[in-house]
């Protein structure tokens, strides 16, 4: 039983190894002599006028949070969509309730104007 997990293990090890080697190789093999001008901020060739670390307005954070929520909802849809046939009517009603709950959240969100941009 354990045997048929070996190919997956090899694939994972090979994937991780490839990623690590590729990113670390240039660090090990490449020359490194940092100096202060090289580390300075790149702003298309000019001295940066003001630091970019300003306080951002809240709307960016809102959009990010909402995206995560609805993205997870889609992730839950995948297993349901895969064996949609076997689940039959029970699965359909179950998923319908799940989506309806999130739809209430979405309507609330639209009314509050969280996605209003400008």
């Amino acid at each position: 039983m354990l045997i048929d997990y070996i190919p997956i293990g090899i694939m994972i090890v090979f994937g991780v190894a490839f990623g690590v080697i590729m990113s670390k190789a240039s660090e090990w093999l490449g020359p490194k002599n940092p100096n202060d001008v090289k580390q300075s901020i790149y702003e298309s060739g000019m001295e940066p006028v003001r630091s970019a670390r300003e306080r951002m307005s809240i709307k960016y954070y809102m959009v990010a949070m909402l995206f995560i929520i609805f993205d997870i909802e889609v992730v839950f849809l995948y297993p349901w969509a895969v064996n949609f046939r076997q689940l039959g009517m029970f699965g359909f009603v179950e998923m319908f309730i799940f989506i309806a709950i999130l739809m209430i959240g979405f309507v609330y969100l639209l009314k509050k104007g969280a996605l209003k941009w400008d």
Partner: protein
Amino acid sequence: MGLMKTDEAFITTKLDEMIGWARKNSLWPMPMGISCCAIEMMSFAGPRYDCARFGSEAFRFSPRQSDLMIVAGTVTYKMSHVVRKIYDQMPDPKWVIAMGACTSSGGIYRTYSVVQGIDLFIPVDVYIAGCPPRPDNLINGLIQIQKKIARGEKPGQSEKVYIQEPSRIHERQTA
């Protein structure tokens, strides 16, 4: 690459020669396009002269990801600080091509605001003559840089390479 004994199919290559080979074939250019030579540099990257054949297709506009800076155009005193800053911000093994007469020597602009040749403030590896040099002449410059890397020379300090305008007999223009 140093192929020692081919019959045994046993390749002994020094590590830096292998790195040199890898670096040579993936020189990502930083196009410091300033004036007319920039248009020839665009044709050099365009479909016809296609620098992708030499591994330098990815024109990186940020100095962090580029190895070869192609300075193409007239560098004025106001622009020289920018060119120098971008050159400093590039990671270390970096080469510089001075493309065109204006970049190499001020060209036809002997005026108050033009730097007479960028080697006054940047170590240059290859100078390419021409105003603007034809894209195939720029590819020739790229090959010279690749040869220098293959020879394992340090960027900037090694002897300079000067590429003349190829004397083209204008065979097509009859009469």
